């Protein structure tokens, strides 16, 4: 004798089937009727909120499992992250001394205050969120997904964020840039009242002051032609950078040219790290002036000295940290479709790790004025 009689089993199955059809139909009718409110002003029910948060947290945790986070972060990295945070993140998330914009605060969900929220996440999870963004929340993905090195800069800064007060934050994010208070008329009649939200100088320095983070290139005295081409490549997405692309695309072609000419006219702020390792500098000098014909590496200085074409950057007095990072990115396979990339990419990819360090140490130690005499 079976546990359930046959007619009863059929009845149960029929009941479940009809029930499912009724649910699907009912759901469709409910969506079709427009009775559900998508208003951000209404918020979620507590239960909905709990389920959504539960799903989001677990999704981030699972997807971040394979990511290896660095043990420590350099000050260069967190300073770069702070500068971009000020431009790209603070509008929604706020920062010490920078209130969240009320418009951003009225989003659903409202962007969290990160000085407390970052404690809930591991480094790799923060990396994943910054790189990929979060669906349905308004958190955007990183503009250039190739540039993991930039995403780590943000993570490095986020780790420091809870310890910063308003003064320390301003110092870090504005890179020592002092902003002249605007007079009432200026505030009333100009668009830009953001406190140098997107000023180049926060990262790259200005006048006699070089970049605060050594991961940021020195632009002082670079040829204007090279700077304009770089800004155009960033703006068009031909060069990948989640930091530079938003800034460059916000400038008009005329503005790009003016700011390029401004930096081109500045004197170098001075070699930042002179002769840290004399042996490395010497090896770098050999490679930069003679190349390594056996490894098919041409001499760097034929294109990167003061007498070269103005589409090429000058490397004397450039930060070693920046040069190393740029060359490593090529080796890691970061691609670009700029006009000079087909020339430099194969060279960068044929350098080994030691050659990268040596040549960066050499260029950081050379002075721009001396290299002009050598030509």
């Amino acid at each position, binding site marked *: 004798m079976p546990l359930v009689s046959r007619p009863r089993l059929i009845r149960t199955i029929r009941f479940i089937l009809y029930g499912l059809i009724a649910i699907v139909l009912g759901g469709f009718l409910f969506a079709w009727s427009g009775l559900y409110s998508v208003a951000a002003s209404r918020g979620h029910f507590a239960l909905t909120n709990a389920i959504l948060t539960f799903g989001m947290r677990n999704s981030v945790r699972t997807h971040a499992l394979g990511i290896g986070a660095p043990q420590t972060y350099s000050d260069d990295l967190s300073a770069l992250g702070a500068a971009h945070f000020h431009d790209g993140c603070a509008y929604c998330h706020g920062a010490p001394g920078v209130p969240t914009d009320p418009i951003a605060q009225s989003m659903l969900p409202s962007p969290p205050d990160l000085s407390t929220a970052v404690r809930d996440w591991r480094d790799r999870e923060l990396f994943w969120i910054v790189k990929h963004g979060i669906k349905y929340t308004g958190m955007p993905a990183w503009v250039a997904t190739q540039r993991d090195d930039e995403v780590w800069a943000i993570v490095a800064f986020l780790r420091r964020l809870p310890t910063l007060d308003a003064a320390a934050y301003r110092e870090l994010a504005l890179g020592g840039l002092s902003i002249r208070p605007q007079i009432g008329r200026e505030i009333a009649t100009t668009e830009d009242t953001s406190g140098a939200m997107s000023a180049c100088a926060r990262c790259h320095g200005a006048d006699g002051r070089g970049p605060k983070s050594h991961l940021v290139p020195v632009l002082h005295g670079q040829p204007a032609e090279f700077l304009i081409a770089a800004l155009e490549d960033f703006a068009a997405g031909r060069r990948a950078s989640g930091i530079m692309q938003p800034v460059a695309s916000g400038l008009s072609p005329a503005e790009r040219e003016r700011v390029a000419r401004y930096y081109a006219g500045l004197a170098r702020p001075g070699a930042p790290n002179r002769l840290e390792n004399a042996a490395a500098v010497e090896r770098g000098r050999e490679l930069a002036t003679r*190349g390594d014909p056996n490894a098919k590496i*041409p*001499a760097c200085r*034929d294109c990167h000295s003061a007498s070269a*074409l103005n589409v*090429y950057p000058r490397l004397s007095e450039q930060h070693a940290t920046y040069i190393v990072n740029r060359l490593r990115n090529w080796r890691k396979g970061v691609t670009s479709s700029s*006009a000079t990339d*087909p*020339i430099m990419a*194969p060279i960068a990819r044929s350098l080994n790790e030691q050659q990268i360090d040596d040549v960066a140490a050499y260029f950081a130690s050379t002075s721009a004025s001396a290299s002009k005499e050598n030509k």
Partner: protein
Amino acid sequence: MIRARPFRYLLGVSMLLGGCTSDVQSVMNPSSLQAVQIAEVAWFLFGFGTFVLVLVILTFLLAIRGSLRVRQAVARESTVIWLGIAFPAVTLTVLLVYGVWVTRSHLNLTDGGSTVSIEVVGEQWWWRVMYYAPAGPQIASANEIRIPVGSPVTLKLKAADVIHSFWVPSLGGKVDMIPGRTTQLQLTVNRPGVYRGQCAEYCGGPHALMAMDVIAMSSSDYAAWLERAATAPATPETDIGLHGRSIFLAAGCGACHTVRGTAAAGSVGPDLTHIGARRSVGIDTLPLTRENLMRFIVDGQHVKPGNLMPEFRILQPQQLEALAFYLLSLKAAD
């Protein structure tokens, strides 16, 4: 499918015959002492092989169709011993001695009989050519080997990266170029002319486009050419030439290429000191004209896909024209 076969045979035969029409790159057109020897041995072996083939077929036919007496004779043990063991042993020994004797000059390479010694280095994907002059500067060129007619020339063959193989069919046998070793090839060319050679060992990407010309000249012409080649090209006199030279230096061409007499001293790519006197651009892919030169500089990856020279699309049209003008002017004054 079966009906397609005659067409296939025809195609095959026409392709084989196609090889006979060009005589700049053909073993059928031996033009050096060594190639003549190789051809002589080849024809002799071919003829003898034909004789043996006919002999075998005849014996085969006799063994099937012959009268009983003939068949018995073929099946006899002494026939097998004479025709099957003694005949091959004797003829193969004679042929071996004959072959070695005819080509004996190929074996004896260490003697000092050569008057001219040229180094050829196989690189991905071009030929670096270096002339050892007793005095004066070392003369480097690319993809073109000039040699005198009538006297033995020793080619020292090297490889810079992977194995290449040096083969100029009209002038001699194939010789591999092996990284870390120097192999040698001796040539005594009979008559002046241009002979084409090809890399004969797959060496990656554009291997099929890695070709060269060997230009054989009379001894007096060769001596005169060598003297001209040793001079540095004159400084440009026109504005466009000077502009071209400044572009050459400022664009970083000198990081890979040498032009003697200027700051350009790179050795990654071909020496361009006398490129204006060469016959081709882009490693024998295009004839040397102004248009082809400009095309190779900005669009080289389409001309010779995979070659190691980056495309210089950064150059403005007038910069490119000046550069091409300057490069074409790089030759010794006649």
